[in-house]
């Protein structure tokens, strides 16, 4: 922390921010992705932008990078208002992005990638190009062979190429979108060293992350983004505990007033005992009919692996998983399409539906056995059913010939939910069911999940504490694949500690 403290005064003296956001707002349809965001990005500082998936981080960065224009508010570069019409203009203004998915040409060398578009002359001199890039890499402590083909490089090395591209263009502000997501721990450590070197040379670094530890170890300043708003901004040296950060990141203010009738709990539908495997460490819990069990935690702490096991995508390594009273192997061997398991994946446009199929075909994706007559499909009946779902769940536009991609996220989610409920599941797995949805769609989804309790047990995986505490009977907190706590939401003492548990603190 001494490093951060010795430099906290930089912001206090008369240094102009390189980039300033003033009340920047961005809407997508009804969804408010960014709501009046004001931030200052200072030279020589590392700013972390912390937030869950769907908090609006990527939208904010896309506006800085010139891919979107703000609906309201403005961006200032070195004190002057700017409006980026394209990424090119943002680059020219000294703002550079390193995306999660690298923009590199695999069949070209490191030097060619770095100098692409900046060759400085019509005729190329490969040796001089390699030398230039080599020197630049050395200056910022980014070890790399400029003559190597990018296709043969590791993810960490590719990221260095992306950084070199920005440095070569003399970007003053370098924005990293979840830079460690694709890196090994060792590579992440060397990235951090490089970021500190760049920051010491006066570059402003912004990095987006939802990993508390790396934010605390790297950042000078931390801004928390939640539901499109800045929830707080601190100097890293002011942070007392990671749990405070975690609690602020996921929040817990109730935004909707949902009536939650009590439902009598029935038989056990899911029983997980000592489940371990990749990303999972001795996980145990059970779920009964009439109950909603919320799995909460910062994304990437084993939730996805857990869902994959429960939904039959991956085999449990060790430990036991019983579904509807049957062992995992037996259940998935002879699974009924109806009256058993339904899953609402997080990726509703990719995993749950096919973009270019219409709603009837998307209905058939998981329910076709119900419409099969020998080798034939009863399409007329499927169309009627799809119409029924569209009507009952108020899916807009109310046209079953519409293709999945034509629906907004909220409407697509309502359709997916309707389809899965049509299967009359006794165990329902809902993954981030309201992520990115507007308020009315969120409310509709929540109501349906509560109704589903009458016939099913619901496993709700969510990064949104508000959602968990509104819907669930009991909560499981996960950290690094382990269950940190399992308690009813009425246990206020425990609920208060959720933030600490999510940060891995058990005290």
């Amino acid at each position, binding site marked *: 922390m001494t490093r951060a403290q010795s430099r906290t005064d930089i912001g206090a003296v008369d240094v102009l921010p390189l980039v300033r956001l003033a009340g920047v707002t961005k809407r997508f349809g009804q969804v408010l992705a960014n709501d009046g965001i004001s931030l200052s990005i200072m030279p020589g500082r590392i700013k972390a932008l912390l937030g869950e998936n769907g908090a609006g981080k990527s939208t904010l960065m896309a506006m800085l990078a010139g891919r979107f224009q703000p609906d309201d508010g403005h961006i200032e570069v070195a004190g002057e208002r700017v409006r980026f019409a394209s*990424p*090119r203009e943002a*680059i020219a203004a000294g703002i550079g992005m390193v995306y999660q998915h690298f*923009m*590199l*040409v*695999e*069949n*070209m060398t490191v030097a*060619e*990638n770095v*100098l*692409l*578009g*900046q*060759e400085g*002359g*019509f*005729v*190329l001199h*490969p040796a001089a190009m390699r030398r230039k890039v080599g020197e630049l890499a050395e200056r910022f402590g980014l070890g790399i062979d400029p003559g190597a*083909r990018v*296709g*043969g490089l590791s993810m960490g090395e590719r990221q260095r190429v992306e950084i070199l*591209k920005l440095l070569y263009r003399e970007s003053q502000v370098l924005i990293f979108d979840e830079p460690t997501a694709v890196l090994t721990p060792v590579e992440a450590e060397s990235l951090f060293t490089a970021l500190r070197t760049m920051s010491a040379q006066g570059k402003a670094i912004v990095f987006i992350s939802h990993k508390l530890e790396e934010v605390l170890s790297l950042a000078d300043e931390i801004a928390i983004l939640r539901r499109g708003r800045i929830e707080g901004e601190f100097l890293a040296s002011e942070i007392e505990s990671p749990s405070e950060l975690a609690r602020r990141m996921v929040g817990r203010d109730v935004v909707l007033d949902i009536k939650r009738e009590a439902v009598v709990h029935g038989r056990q539908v899911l029983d997980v005992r000592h489940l371990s495997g990749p990303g999972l460490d001795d996980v145990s819990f059970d779920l009964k009919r009439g109950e909603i069990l919320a799995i909460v935690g910062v994304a990437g702490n084993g939730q996805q692996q857990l869902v994959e096991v429960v939904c039959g995508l991956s085999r449990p390594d060790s430990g036991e998983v019983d579904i509807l009273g049957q062992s995992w192997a037996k259940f998935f061997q002879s699974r009924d399409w109806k009256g058993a398991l339904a899953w609402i994946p997080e990726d509703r446009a990719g995993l749950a539906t096919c973009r270019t199929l219409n709603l009837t075909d998307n209905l058939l994706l998981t329910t076709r056995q119900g419409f099969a007559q020998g080798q034939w499909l009863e399409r007329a009946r499927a169309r009627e059913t799809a119409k029924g779902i569209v009507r009952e769940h108020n899916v807009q536009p109310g046209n079953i010939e519409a293709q999945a991609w034509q629906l907004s996220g909220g409407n697509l989610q309502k359709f997916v939910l309707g389809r899965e409920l049509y299967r009359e599941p006794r165990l329902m797995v809902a993954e981030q069911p309201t992520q990115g949805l507007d308020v009315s769609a969120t409310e509709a989804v929540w109501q349906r999940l509560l109704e589903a309790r009458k016939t099913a047990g619901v496993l709700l995986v969510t990064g949104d504490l508000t959602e968990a505490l509104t819907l669930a009977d009991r909560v499981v907190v996960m950290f690094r694949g382990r269950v940190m706590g399992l308690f009813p939401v009425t246990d206020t003492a425990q609920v208060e500690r959720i933030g600490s548990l999510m940060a891995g603190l058990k005290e």
Partner: protein
Amino acid sequence: MSPELIIALLAAAVQGAAPILFATLGEMLSEKAGVLNLGVEGVMALSAFAAFIVCHLTGSAVLGLFAGGFAGALLCGLHALVCQVFLGNQVVSGLALTIFGVGLSDFLGTPYVGVGTEGFRQFAVPLLSHLPMLGPVLFRQDAMVYLVYCAPVAVWFLLNRTSLGLGLRATGEMPAAAAAAGLNPQRLRAFGVMAGGFLCGLGGAYLSLAHTHLWSTGLSGGRGWVAVALVIFAFWRPGRAVIGALLFGGVMAFQLRLQAEGTNVPSSLLLMLPYALTVIVLVFSAARAKYLKTGHSAAPAALGVNIEPEG
């Protein structure tokens, strides 16, 4: 076989290779930019006619050559328009271009069948033509053959030693990366397709101006398809295209010679020879690519994939 015969055969092989090499390099340029152009056959046919008619009307072979080149560039510009502006399927558009080009050149050329042109005549290059073996094979040719000697070097230089070529290759591999670097992938692709079309057009012009010296239907005779296959055989490298083109030119010359000698082998079987070789060559290059296991394909990664507008 006498030495004279061998030299004559080799010289004929070089002449046979010339139009194929022009077209192969043209297709390569287009594919390097990411656009598959299956219209080469039609482009060659129509530009052969354009070269012939301009040469016939003006009496200038050089004007005819440029007419062929520009006809090729224009026709490929149509392909670029369909694929890039209207996001049409590259395979379908290319096939349509072939049918269109072949058909139109036959239609327009019908009144001229059998009409001769002066075109390019062979001349000996001083000094070089006296080299043993190489002299008579390489340096007693026409001006377009001398031009084709420069083409692979020029294409290689453009692709590998100029910023334009770097942008072109980036566009063929990953248009998004090129756009992120501030380049205009659409414009680069259009350039690649049309410059490639110009080269294919030169290949067509060669057929009517230097190869036959008179107009007849079906001049392109499948050479455009051979060029498409040769790009794969060459692993998208100009140097290897030379080897491939010579191989085909050689087989074509050999086949013609055999026919002229009057062998017992049916002529239709002999005519088939170059195309049988095409199939064999494709199998061979696929096997080789598998053997080498370089971990990447030699084909440009975004070949055949249209650039979708963002949004």
